[in-house]
């Protein structure tokens, strides 16, 4: 194994992701944990875990807790997701990053530069947290989501775009005897429409569509998004780590050449493709 040249830390609203990258820009070590309210010791421990016995290397930090990472250069998620995704795909297009607390739509230029971006504002309705809250209410585990959505005969309309009100709406739907799988599919549909509207709101919505962020690990969401956008959505390898990868790349003195194929990716459900499209389509 080559020596790490940089470490990237993504302190998100739901999880903390830390990666170490080699000279070729590939991820050498990775770790993902649910975020701890005591950020400092958690980050310190995870950084030590990926660094191993290696020497001191520069650290890039991103995510809402980026300013809490000692000795790191703080870079916003927009820049990091753009760099991380471009390092994996090497192509211009539109990147949709769906994380725990916010959803970002980033338009990437041919050299991976950020041309434009849009984010959800002050509201977590189009984010992973929305799904997490409602699935928690329905007692549906993350692992069961895709199967459940595939089994749904039809999506049940969930009209509210507010996480809190949608939760009460879902309770009413359950009480009215609506099937759980239909409600879950309806939730995905509602969420996808919201994200699609955000994507179309960017200055120019054209080219390939890529997806990163923890929510991209949910194939049902990828399918729903494809349906809402009416075009294929390619999931960047190890989508949850894209921000941390970009943070590491941001602090490497000279960026390594774009790597179209990431190394082993235990977090990616489809380890054989550099960029996969949705694997299930409930239609």
């Amino acid at each position: 194994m080559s020596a790490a040249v940089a470490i990237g830390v993504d302190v998100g609203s739901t999880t903390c992701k830390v990666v170490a990258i080699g000279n070729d820009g590939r991820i050498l070590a990775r770790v993902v944990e649910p975020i701890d309210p005591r950020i400092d010791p958690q980050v310190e421990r995870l950084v030590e875990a990926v660094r191993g016995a290696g020497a001191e290397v520069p650290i890039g930090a991103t995510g809402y807790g980026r300013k809490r990472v000692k000795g790191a250069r703080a870079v916003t998620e927009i820049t990091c997701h753009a760099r991380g995704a471009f390092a994996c795909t090497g192509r211009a297009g539109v990147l949709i990053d769906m994380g725990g607390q916010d959803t970002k739509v980033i338009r990437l230029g041919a050299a991976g530069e950020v041309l434009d971006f849009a984010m959800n504002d002050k509201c977590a309705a189009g984010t992973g947290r929305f799904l997490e809250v409602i699935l928690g209410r329905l007692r549906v585990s993350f692992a069961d989501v895709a199967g459940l959505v595939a089994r749904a005969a039809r999506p049940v309309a969930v009209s509210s775009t507010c996480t809190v009100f949608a939760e009460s709406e879902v309770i009413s739907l359950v009480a009215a005897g609506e099937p759980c799988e239909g409600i879950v599919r309806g939730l995905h549909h509602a969420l996808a429409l919201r994200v699609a509207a955000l994507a179309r709101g960017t200055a120019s919505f054209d080219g390939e569509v890529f997806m990163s962020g923890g929510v991209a690990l949910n194939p049902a969401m990828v399918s729903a998004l494809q349906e809402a956008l009416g075009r294929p959505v390619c999931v960047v390898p190890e989508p949850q780590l894209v921000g941390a990868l970009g943070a590491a790349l941001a602090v490497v003195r000279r960026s390594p050449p774009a790597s179209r194929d990431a190394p082993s990716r235990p977090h990616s459900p489809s380890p054989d493709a550099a960029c996969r499209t949705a694997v299930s389509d409930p239609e």
Partner: protein
Amino acid sequence: MTVHYMQGRYADGAVPVAWVTSGFPVEILRPLGFHAVYPENHAALCGVQRLVPALSEAAEAEGYSRDLCSYARTDLGSVITGRTPAGRLPRPDLLACCTNICQTVLYWYRALAERFQVPLVVVDTPYVYGAAKPHHLTYVKAQLEELVRVAERISHRRADPEALVEVTRKAKAGADLWGECLAQGRHRPAPWTAIDGFFHMAPIVSLRGSDACNAYYRLLRDELADRVRRGIGGVRDERHRLLWDNLPIWFATRELSTLFAERGFNFVCTSYTNAWAEAGSGIDPADPLGSAATVYTHVLLNQDLPNRLAVLRRLARDYGVDGAVLHSDRSCKPYSIGQVDLRARLAAELGIRVLLLEADHSDPRAYASEPGENRLAAFMEGFA
């Protein structure tokens, strides 16, 4: 401005008092001895001092919606509670609003008229598509003539045409001086920031037509010109120049100016501060009422989107900006509508980076500072 607010404390009973909107032709009232109170300026003062949530809540408790403009809620809340950072606001003898900035003022001032039981004059300005038609201007001028009669009755004075000419002359000179101050921002580095401009605009809004206003801007212009000569910038090491559209975020001016200045970004122009230079300079002392009808009908917010785009495009070019932040102001719908299209057009036509920032001009409850600053930081990283 301090003197103005101090005078205001003791104005009622001594001189006639009018509460007016920012886009009202105040030149007509000044020769009749009116002390003009600007509830919008006062609300901005409350915004900077972060008093808006408390005052708004008082208005909301009386049934005013939180979706209403935060200036209106602040003003109504201040009237309800009597709380003001100015010590005391004089009771109005006349309420005067002009619909050239929004329709909210109509309902806001009606509520004030009911509360104070004083006459309300509404100057209704038809919305301008392209340029105003002659009959629009005849209609507005007729209302200004009616305003003179009402103001005479309330002030117990006869309008003096010569005095009106004199005030109009001063108002025009003031707007021109303000324009000269703003134009200093075209220099590199710009000698001040648009955020400074937001504070220095108070006299052109509230003291327009007075000697004090013009003296202030002569001093400011000379100081700015001196800074230009000495190469002193509004921010240290100006690297990028930006345009700001819409009202400021009063309660976050320090945070935002620091965030930008630390990275060498300077707001060198704004459509908001520019509006007072542009409109006011069209006032003609030879025809006070006729020119006021034209000028006040053609204020920025009373004109269609192509005009707004033309103004932004011109500012961007004149001031040599390489980016723009369009503040989508929850409280100011007329200013914020169309910004999605404006953003796309500015980015495509001028090749500059443009960000839409959702906030509110004075209610911090409608602004999420962490996501907001995150967005601004990402916007600035894009310039590297």
